[in-house]
């Protein structure tokens, strides 16, 4: 099998299994109490990690590029209580503008 198809099949199967772990194995059962605390804090932890990796990750090094300008502009829009769409558009537009020059 080619490297391409091997990657497509293995990554697809692994991802499907990751996504289904909770909904299939746990289902409607209540989370055990020792797990409930961490799970309630999972969203802020993952989202903060995503903000960081999506803005400064540069293939095993930290890079400060135009993504940070976009993120900063988005943060200002957010502080001004702009709706989600405006935040995203402002961030993209700011990065695109800086990239023009």
């Amino acid at each position, binding site marked *: 099998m080619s*490297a*391409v198809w*091997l*990657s*497509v099949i*293995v*990554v*697809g199967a*692994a*991802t*499907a299994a*990751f*996504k289904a*772990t*909770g*909904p*299939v194995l*746990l*289902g409607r059962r*209540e*989370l055990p109490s020792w797990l409930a*605390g961490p*799970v*309630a*804090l*999972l*969203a*802020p*932890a*993952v*989202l*903060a*990690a*995503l*903000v*960081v*990796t*999506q*803005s*400064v*990750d540069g293939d*095993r090094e*930290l890079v400060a590029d*135009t*993504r940070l300008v*976009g*993120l900063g*502009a*988005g943060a200002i829009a*957010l502080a001004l209580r702009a709706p*989600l*769409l405006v*935040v*995203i*558009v402002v*961030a*993209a537009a700011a*990065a*695109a503008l800086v*990239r023009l020059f």
Partner: protein
Amino acid sequence: MRARYLEGARAIAPVGVAAGAFGLSFGVLARTAGMGWVAPLVMSATTFAGSAQVAAASVLHDGGGAAAAIGAAVMLNARYAPIGISVASAFEGAVAKRLVQAQLIVDESWAIALKRREGPDVRVLLGAGALLFVCWNGGTALGVVLGDSIGDPERIGLDAAFPALFLALLVSQLRSRSTVGTAALGGAIALALIPFTPAGVPIVAGAAACLVGWRR
């Protein structure tokens, strides 16, 4: 009942546009990585996780081989195990139904479902996930067909749209001191690990910051 699905789709619509453009750039990248045109389409429909697919395609593009491509993508998607667990109680019905529905869990649909003040709702997640699925796969198809005849999507600042999106979703989660502290810790862990670990590890390790909530 249908209102909840629409609520999810409507809430995610602006992100759908970005996901379509991101899918397009994945399609273009996959073509230049020599993945042909069927494999990228199958991957977008089955894996349905942008960053992991881009990581795998980049490794293949640079001649890194299947093991490296699989390792990077699997590491990136490992976060979906805890993410799925956090919304598990919202899923109902037969095992096969839950298995299929769970495939619509992506960062954005999950965060939108959690963002509701009334608590997470699986129909909001599925409505949002379904719209993202259509945008992502449509974008991939367009990218595969058009190949590199279209320019670099980064020119329109697409790569800056996603961190801003996650920041907005994060802010909506910061309801207490413990959530703020956890977010700061998770972000700091990810930042510290980026130079030393393969892609994906900083996210999973950052997610572990939620363990401060152990037995409280």
